[in-house]
């Protein structure tokens, strides 16, 4: 996709008028806001203006992806100095309040701490703005349901960033399954092994009440993928442990899922590995075949440089530089959906079902591995 930064251009924050005059905006606040295709942009997402709320790790990642897509961005954070710094770095502007941000953009990208997803997303929907929300959809199922209701009432789109569905290796494996290459999925093993994000004690990320811990933050990627490949889950057993920094909570968890199809999945999520580990692996065994992947063996470039530290960043992230940026694919697909209704590979309903599964796994872990049942009918409600 060709980025069209120049064409999309900036907009005047005071008048909300696109300075290049080529983007039209509906002022209809009563229902779905049509985003008309501009004549100048040769990408769909270049016709959008995105407002990013929250400038932590994922906010910065999304800002980079939006920028690469040629989307005009506005940034808001309660920490205005951080917002200014980030906006300056990416050529974005900042808003001084949520309300100002909502006025200035077509789509609100919620990258706040998890427990604040719902209030921000609901406010954005009520302001008539489409909403993109980082995973997990919300801290509680009730919050997620309220988000769905708000989006439905406002007639806006709501999409949740389950980015693993945009990672090429995960997409290729699912495509192979859908093509019947291994038959019916029977046993899945999904692994995500890394180090604990390097945040200080007291950071929201380590507060289970705010983040949901490793199950809602890390394991949820593979819980979502397990559902995407093998369908709804009817039972989950999960165990967890604290390996390092007890004050920061659980950093290793393993779940066993039973799918409605009869398939079974082993899902392992860990922050117990030494930096700079970020390893993802999966095996999908089917009725007549097998798919294996391990990121430990698929890095096309391996540096062996003498003068380097451990190479670890604050939060581990897969090196996506050699086959497109999954975050960019994700946001481009979401943007297209918002402009012209193109279907997406994940829906808010999907994200809610994944959240319910993650909450069930977390509950199981807190109850020493009690088997928690899920109603598959509720997942597709």
């Amino acid at each position: 996709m060709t980025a069209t930064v120049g064409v999309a251009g900036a907009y005047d924050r005071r008048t909300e008028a696109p300075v290049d005059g080529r983007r039209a905006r509906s002022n209809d606040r009563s229902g779905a806001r049509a985003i008309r295709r501009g004549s100048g942009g040769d990408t769909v997402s270049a016709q959008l203006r995105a407002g990013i709320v929250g400038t932590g790790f994922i906010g910065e990642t999304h800002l980079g992806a939006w920028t690469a897509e040629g989307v005009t961005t506005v940034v808001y954070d309660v920490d205005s100095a951080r917002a200014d710094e980030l906006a300056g770095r990416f050529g974005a502007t900042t808003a001084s309040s949520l309300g100002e941000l909502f006025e200035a953009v077509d789509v609100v990208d919620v990258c706040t701490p998890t427990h604040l997803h719902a209030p921000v997303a609901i406010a954005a929907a009520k302001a008539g703005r489409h909403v993109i929300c980082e995973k997990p959809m919300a801290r509680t199922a009730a919050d997620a349901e309220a988000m769905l209701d708000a989006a439905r009432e406002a007639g806006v789109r709501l999409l949740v960033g389950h980015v693993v569905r945009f990672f090429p290796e995960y997409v290729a494996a699912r495509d192979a399954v859908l093509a019947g290459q291994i038959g019916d999925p029977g046993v899945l093993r999904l692994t995500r092994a890394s180090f604990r994000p390097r945040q200080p004690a007291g950071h929201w990320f380590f507060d289970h009440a705010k983040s949901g811990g490793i199950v809602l933050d890390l394991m949820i990627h593979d819980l979502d993928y397990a559902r995407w490949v093998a369908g709804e889950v009817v039972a989950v057993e999960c165990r967890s442990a604290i390996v390092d920094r007890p004050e920061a909570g659980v950093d290793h968890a393993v779940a066993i899922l039973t799918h409605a199809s009869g398939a079974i999945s082993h899902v392992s999520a860990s922050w117990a590995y030494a930096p700079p580990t970020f390893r993802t692996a999966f095996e999908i065994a089917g009725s007549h075949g097998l798919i294996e992947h391990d990121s430990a063996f698929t890095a096309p470039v391996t540096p062996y440089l003498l003068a380097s530290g451990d190479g670890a960043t604050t939060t581990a992230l897969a090196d996506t530089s050699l086959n497109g940026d999954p975050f960019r694919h994700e946001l481009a697909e979401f943007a297209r959906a918002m402009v012209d209704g193109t279907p997406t590979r994940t829906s808010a309903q999907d994200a809610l079902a994944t959240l319910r599964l993650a909450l069930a796994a977390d509950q199981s872990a807190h109850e020493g591995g009690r088997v928690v049942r899920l109603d598959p009918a509720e997942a597709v409600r």
Partner: protein
Amino acid sequence: MTGHERRAAAGNVRIGVLSMEHVHARSYVPLLADLPGVDLAGIWDANPERASSAAGGAGTRAFGSVAGLLEQVDAVVVTAPNAEHRDLVEQAAVAGVDVLCEKPLATNVPDARAIVDACERAGVLLMTAFPSRWNPAVRTLRSTIVAGGLGEVVALEGVNTGAMPDIHAAWFVDPARSGGGAVTDHVVHLADLYRWMLGSEVVEVYAVANRILQEHFDGVETGGLVSLRFANGTFATIDCSWSKPRSYPTWGGLSISAIGTGGAITVDAFRQRLAVYGTREAGISWPDWGPDSDRSMLEAFVDAVREQRQPAVTGVDGLRAVEIVDAAYRSIEAGEPVRVGSAGG
């Protein structure tokens, strides 16, 4: 005169093989024929032709009766179908012959306990064939754990998956003779290694299984995941599935990720292999160039027999593994975690 007294007179340890029906017998027989200080004294099999063919290939005698072979040996390796272990081990014990019994020790807990009791009563040595205990990668992990190099172990994740063994013999997938499918076949190795590494017993088991894999077959379970909780608080999982399709370049594998307060260690026990690309028909194969754990295990058994001391892996180890398999099946049936009958007992 007991077997041991006879052996003392003869010098070499005389070993017989009871049954060629287990695929591992095909590995053990040439190794026994080759081991210094060992006389491969004979092979019995329920099928006389199979016994003759195996004995001819190994340069040893075929026996038409179990009793006949037991009279001529100090020790036996029992590689019959799982359900027939008990009868053969009991005969060996009564004859005063030491036993190396293929895993799983038995298809149910009462048979496994009877095997242990019979050998204890007769005063013969009993070892369960868990060759992975001699895999150097596994031993490195264990010695690191024992030395405290991983801190306190909080979790173990293991994968012991393989091809469906009906390619070797039909009895593997006949529950009357094997005891079950993938759960019976593959849980015991890792369950034993975990017990050995942790020095703790399993108290609770949760397991799920299905029959989706290997669609050419409709019978015992082909896929399984097992979650174990140990008395010391460590939790561990096992993927025991027969998930390797026939196109897979090797039989399967065994790997462990160990998580402790000191970090993590991953072990792939059969990583030492080549990739060989042959003709289209031959396809790809992964010949193993790593050390032969079967040989090390047999050497350890022979040494134990020679010195008449308790082998490194005992019959009780085999019994504990069978108890874990039994709990796994009970959990699959119940859909809930279950306690292990004689945990710690």
